[in-house]
């Protein structure tokens, strides 16, 4: 029988790889390897422990916390019992946590630490279905007296005792898992309404493993870093689905704060990232170079155009001549190699950006350094991926061809429709919502795209976000926003223009970079608000916008802009956990600064 569920795949991997490294975790400053045997051991004992507590098939277990091996153990243990794992963003507010626990009807919740536990305890009285809170790190909570709390370690201990009596029990339990079981529920970030819980079955996961690996081969030797939240489908794919299939190694950083430093030590060969992270890396590099000594600055300024030229040749499908090849090699050893080492991307073989559109400028920048960044396209409802460029060939701005195993077509209005094994099983407790996006087996993604003559897909924008101006012209705001965000001083940009004569933008400046600039320019400020209130800062942003406008069609240029006097925040409901802007809420909330621009 072939392994058609993740727990079965885990068993298979354990049989093959036994004492080889499956995971690595940095603890007390030292990287600690976790073998496949140990991996299984944890999943088994935690699973048996949960079973003893009373977890039954189809019941829900939420997992709330930063990425760590225990996250994956709990995830796989839950799935082994044919129960459903639900990931919750650790950055979620108490209210948002409550919504997901309530909506999913979670029976248990696994929390990482005191911070997350306190959120659950605050709303625990309103969650009648919640029976247990399992705490991974008991620091600071040992003296809590709530009867619901049990430590992760205790659950494993119970499991160990059961295993002692019946060593083969768990393999028998895993054998009962079926491809049609719902494995996980992934809550979408919800830019327009409350989050929706997309149910993904093992069948979906198998389909996505199959499709993805044909386009981007990953092997046992590859090393990945678990950097994005595990509750997001993309990180789940890279940290769980793919390793279960190919046996690659997953590394966990010491903490979110040490990620950048740990990246250098890990130096992953495959890297999943999001545009925001790449934008941050780009602006850090730019600022650091500006502050570097003149020799370094000069070398950088000489080498970047060479990298850019080579990137352009490669992106347009041309062959790099001997001259540029030689120059690139010199530039590589002089500047690009050390630079890549500093950002932890020295050994990266494939770098995949997803979750939001990536600006062409950022793509070109990293390609100049010789990093093969690819932009993938997918959504939670498609188990993470729909299309991705294959091999070396890549067109700037394209997300490649649909992955194998997908039926694909464009609706008349350009909406992307897909069909296939990786289309999700529907939204949890929301048949109406499911019917809206699933018609005759086709998934209506809500994204507008276009195909070129080679069949490569270009994403225009979210269908709902396309701006139709007063003249009736359709404008995709995300591309313009990305142009603006390429500036190291602009952190977030929201383009406004629905039904209006021209486009304007709300700008959130990059506090760190603008603050640095202001210090150099001797501009006094006390906080974010006073910084953006300064007229010189306004002029700086004005220059940046003028620069971005140069590359835009006339109708797409930003005529006026306003600076937000606070940073957009998840707690204020302005952005989602994945930092996606909630456009409608912002347009409403900041109406008083938008209107004067028209």
């Amino acid at each position, binding site marked *: 029988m072939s392994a058609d569920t993740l727990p079965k795949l885990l068993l298979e991997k354990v049989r093959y790889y036994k004492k080889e490294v499956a995971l690595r975790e940095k603890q007390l*400053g030292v990287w600690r390897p976790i073998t496949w045997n140990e991996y299984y051991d944890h999943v088994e004992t935690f699973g048996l422990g949960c079973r003893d507590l009373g977890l039954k098939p189809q019941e829900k277990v939420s997992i709330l916390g930063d990425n760590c091996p225990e996250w994956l153990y709990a995830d796989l243990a839950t799935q082994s019992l044919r129960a459903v794992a639900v990931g919750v963003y650790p950055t979620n507010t108490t209210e948002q946590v409550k919504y997901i626990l309530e909506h999913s009807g979670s029976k248990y919740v696994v929390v990482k630490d005191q911070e997350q536990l306190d959120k659950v305890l605050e709303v625990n009285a309103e969650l009648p279905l919640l029976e247990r809170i399992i705490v991974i790190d008991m*620091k600071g909570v040992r*003296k809590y007296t709530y009867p619901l709390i049990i430590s992760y370690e205790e659950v494993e201990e119970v499991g160990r005792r059961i295993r002692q009596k019946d060593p083969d029990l768990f393999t028998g339990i895993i054998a009962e898992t079926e491809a049609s079981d719902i494995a996980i529920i992934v809550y979408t970030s919800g830019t327009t309404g409350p989050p929706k819980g997309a149910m993904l079955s093992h069948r979906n996961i198998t389909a996505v493993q199959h499709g993805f690996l044909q386009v981007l081969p990953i092997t046992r030797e590859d090393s990945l870093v678990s950097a994005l939240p595990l509750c997001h489908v993309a990180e789940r794919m890279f940290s769980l689905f793919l390793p279960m299939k190919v046996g690659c190694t997953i590394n966990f950083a010491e*903490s979110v704060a040490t990620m950048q430093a740990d990246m250098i030590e890990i130096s992953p060969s495959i890297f999943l990232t999001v545009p925001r992270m790449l934008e941050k890396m780009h602006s850090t590099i730019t600022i650091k170079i500006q502050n570097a000594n003149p020799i370094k600055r000069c070398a950088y300024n000489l080498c970047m155009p060479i990298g850019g030229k080579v990137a352009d040749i490669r992106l347009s499908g041309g062959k790099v001549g001997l001259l540029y090849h030689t120059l690139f090699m010199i530039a590589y050893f002089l500047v690009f190699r050390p630079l890549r080492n500093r950002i932890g991307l020295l050994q990266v073989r494939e770098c995949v950006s997803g979750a939001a559109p990536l600006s062409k400028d950022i793509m070109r920048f990293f390609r100049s350094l010789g990093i093969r960044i690819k932009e993938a396209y997918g959504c939670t409802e498609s188990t993470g991926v729909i299309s991705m460029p294959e091999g070396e060939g890549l067109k700037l701005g394209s997300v490649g061809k649909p992955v194998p195993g997908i039926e694909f077509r464009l609706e008349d209005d350009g909406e992307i429709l897909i069909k296939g094994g990786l289309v999700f099983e529907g939204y949890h407790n929301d048949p109406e919502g499911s019917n809206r996006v699933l018609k005759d087996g086709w998934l209506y993604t809500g994204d507008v795209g276009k195909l070129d003559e080679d069949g490569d897909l270009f994403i225009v924008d979210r269908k709902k976000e396309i701006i139709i101006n007063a003249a009736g012209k359709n404008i995709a705001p995300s591309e313009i926003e990305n142009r603006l965000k390429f500036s190291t001083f602009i952190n977030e940009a929201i383009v406004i223009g629905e039904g209006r004569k021209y486009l304007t933008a709300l700008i959130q400046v990059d506090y760190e970079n603008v603050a640095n600039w202001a210090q150099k320019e001797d501009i006094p400020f006390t906080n974010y608000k006073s910084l953006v209130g300064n007229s010189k800062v306004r002029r700086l942003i004005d220059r940046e916008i003028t620069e971005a406008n140069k590359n835009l069609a006339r109708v797409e240029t930003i005529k006026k802009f306003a600076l937000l006097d606070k940073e957009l925040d998840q707690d204020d409901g302005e952005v989602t956990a994945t930092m996606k802007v909630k456009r409608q809420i912002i347009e409403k909330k900041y109406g008083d600064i938008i209107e004067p621009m028209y």
Partner: protein
Amino acid sequence: MKRSARMASPDFFEIRDLHMRFAGVQALQGVSISVAKNELLAVIGPNGAGKTTIFNIINGVYHPYKGKILLEGKDITCLKPYKIARAGIARVFQNIELFKNMTVIDNLLLGRHQFLKSSFLSGSFFLGKCLREEMDNRRKVEEVIEFLEIEEVRKQLVKSLPFGLQKRVELGRALCMDPSILLLDEPVAGMNLEEKEDIARFILDIKEEMETTIIMIEHDMEVVMDIADRICVIDFGVKIVEGSPEVVQNHPKVIEAYLGLED
């Protein structure tokens, strides 16, 4: 959050009838305080009340002309400061007293100095026992780094850190001494709200996880009322009130000491 039961054994640490005089100024006039094991006692009082003087006497920096300091019944009054440190009393100073040009790790390793036993010779060759000792100490330092969540800055020079983090490093150095009693002299002074919240949480965690007894001088009443098990108020070298936060908060003598007497 629930607070643990107060007062286990009342005489774990005792200050008995302390008198101290500086050139005619009577700094302390018969102050007696007893602290139970794993208790968090806050010492408060207006400036110049004699709070830091008490700490300096505990540490052996000053010698009182009358009175005793007892740790588990043993008299430690007037011992040399390093002996008092070895007895398990660590202190975090009001002003940061770190080596600014050393890394966080090196500063924390200094907290382990009193545990170094290997000889000059084995140290020169970094062999056997010395190597083990180094590894043990480094492990302890890493545990403290994890506990205080300062992994991000472990290799940075202390001078490059913001004030709040420097305070945390200093707290870490004291924790590296495996203290049974921790003296905190104004741990949240000069901090912003977020830093204060962090430190308050760490102090509670230290008390619970490491079962350390803590004596804390602090002016920030919010923090004191929030985390202290018991409060002792000193004014002009005399203990005026002692009791739970609720009792102290409303005590007329405390209000008088802080706000002055109405004419």
